[in-house]
């Protein structure tokens, strides 16, 4: 046999084998009732590895709790973890393996929105439900009717922040400062602008800066002269740190709150800006100090198990597993389509994130929190 022929043969055999496995798997999925396979594609390596690590912790904790409580009745969860390496290519490989070889009923992940744009199309075509637990970019759930997420987008978080700030601080007129050469900060600005218009808050001045700027004193001086009640700012954390400290240096009083977009949502802001960061407000899906009993218990168990408190990524992963579990219970089967239909019907489910529902567009719907920096920490300002 010539070499080329031999390879052709191996190729044909492989294709046949995969086909048999896939068909066999499909029958099994419908038959089983008490055990559901879920695939978790998370970033264990690459740029998002830091997020993936706590996501895995959160998900694992939920799976252990569910399986311990399930008893003989089920349904138990069989979790398959795999690394999407923070890239769409590896993410696609993992999805193909989950869908065709492992024959999972539902997929959780991937860590990055960028990866989700590619992988979720594969799942949509194969008819496998996906629950994103950290994707906040626009358009992820528009990929198809099998794609869900439990991570809140800026368009939910920001209006809530503005509403609470208006209610509790009586803000009537603001100045806006944002980075206009970056999709993320510009997106945050769009969300703020809409929220401010809806809340009928007047914008006195709009100033912009560019990525890499270090000197914000000209813009802040203009803003100071307008005497706003608050400064609305959409910036990544490096620029945000500079803006916050320079605003205070220029003598803009602490009573003029700086309200930030998601870029402010980082401990680095507090580390960089130090004392000046006190009083900065930023919306988030969740805060570790939330006082709901479910959250308190979760934070305790998580801290006991892993030695440090959970972050938002771990929490959304933990909640995600419970949401999937609820859907499987409701569907009463491990059929992919049945689980999809059950997911659609989830309403006011008690989770660590609060009362959780899906919107018409399969996006997360629960009450976000507003945080403020106090004593060098993010604490809940209002829920």
């Amino acid at each position, binding site marked *: 046999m010539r070499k080329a022929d031999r390879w052709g043969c191996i190729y044909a055999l492989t294709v046949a084998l995969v086909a048999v496995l896939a068909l066999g798997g499909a029958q099994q999925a419908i038959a089983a009732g008490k055990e559901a396979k879920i695939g978790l594609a998370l970033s264990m390596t690459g740029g998002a590895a830091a997020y993936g690590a706590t996501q895995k912790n959160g998900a694992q904790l939920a799976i252990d709790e569910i399986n311990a409580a399930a008893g003989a009745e089920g349904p138990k969860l069989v979790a398959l973890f795999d690394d999407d390496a923070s890239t769409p290519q590896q993410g696609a490989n993992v999805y193909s393996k989950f869908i065709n070889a492992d024959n999972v009923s539902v997929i959780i992940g991937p860590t990055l929105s960028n990866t989700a744009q590619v992988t979720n199309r594969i799942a949509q075509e194969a008819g496998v439900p996906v629950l994103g637990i950290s994707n906040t970019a626009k358009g992820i759930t528009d990929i198809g009717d099998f794609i869900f997420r439990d991570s809140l987008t800026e368009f939910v978080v920001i209006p809530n922040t503005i509403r609470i700030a208006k209610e509790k601080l009586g803000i009537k007129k603001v100045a806006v400062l944002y980075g*206009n*050469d970056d999709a993320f900060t510009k997106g945050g600005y769009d969300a703020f602008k809409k929220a401010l218009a809806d809340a009928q808050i007047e914008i006195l*001045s*709009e*100033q*912009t*800066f*560019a990525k*890499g*700027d*270090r*000197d914000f*004193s*000209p*813009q802040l*001086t*203009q803003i*100071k*002269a307008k005497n706003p009640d608050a400064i609305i700012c959409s910036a990544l954390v*490096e620029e945000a*740190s*500079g803006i916050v*400290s320079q605003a205070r*240096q*220029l*003598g803009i009083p602490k009573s003029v709150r700086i309200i930030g977009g998601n870029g402010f949502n980082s401990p680095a802001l507090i580390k*960089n800006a*130090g*004392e000046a960061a006190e009083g900065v407000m930023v919306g988030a899906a969740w805060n570790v100090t939330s006082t709901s009993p479910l959250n308190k218990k979760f934070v305790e168990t998580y801290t006991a198990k892993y030695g440090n408190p959970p972050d938002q990524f771990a929490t959304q992963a933990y909640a995600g597993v419970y949401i999937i579990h609820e859907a499987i219970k409701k569907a009463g089967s491990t059929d992919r389509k049945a689980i999809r239909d059950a997911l659609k019907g989830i309403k006011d489910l008690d989770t660590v994130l609060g009362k959780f529902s899906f919107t018409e567009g399969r996006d997360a719907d629960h009450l976000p929190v507003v945080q403020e920096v106090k004593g060098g920490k993010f604490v809940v300002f209002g829920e």
Partner: protein
Amino acid sequence: MELLAQQLINGLFIGSVYGLFAVGYTLVFGVLDILNLAHPAIFTLGGLVALWLVEGAHFSIWAAFPSAVLFAGLLGLILDRIAFFPIRRRADSNFSGLISSIAMAILFESAAFALFGARTVRFPANTVTNRVWQVAGVTITSLQVEIVLTAILFMVGLTQLLKRTRVGKAIRAVAENDRAARLLGIHVDRIIAFTFFLSSAMGGAAGILFGLYFDALSPDMGRSIEIKGLAVIILGGMGSIPGAILGGLAFGLTEVLTVAITGTSNLRDAVAFTMLFAILIFRPSGFLGRRSMREA
């Protein structure tokens, strides 16, 4: 009115940092007719080394500042020895010196990357006690005052050194005509090395002040000021020290006022450089002409 005054202060402040940086640039140019493109890298290393002294070696800023300035000066000596001295006798030494200074800039920048990493680093909180003063509705911080004073001190000191001391006179003699200076018994190579020391020390000082005020240092921060420094010395007049200071202030003010008027920083560089061209149409030699260093 208060608004305008505050913006002028902002511009004056950033302009004095530009000026201090550009003085180092223009000093070497005035003496050697060479553009030293490793100057921004020394600016960066000056800032980063001061940070390391404060954070790693627990120096107070008052000890770290002179140490880091001295270190930057020593880097200047190394730079002269490696990048300029070996090719000084070549006919094309102006051009080859420019290229070898770029090579040194890359080496210095890589060293900064290796030693400090690619991320942005900061001085620990309370490195300098920063008081805030309100004067007639204008806010000034003690840090700003200290930075402007330091910049003025350095610039006055340098001018006096060139004007009154023996070594200053020797530098001016070399700038005028290095062959004649040599014939007169001046140790030209040593004078050039000293010029590099002074220039780099000023560059390092500018880097520390820049890092202290904006509180964000990164191995590529020299890039943001490199072209501005060149524009400043062209604006002020190549080789002129008072011109570099004046150019720095003019550039800083233009930048700040552009941002203040347009409400965005996108046009900042465009307007500043347009002004540069406009001024060069009317005064091709810049504010203070060329070669005033010899007369200092």
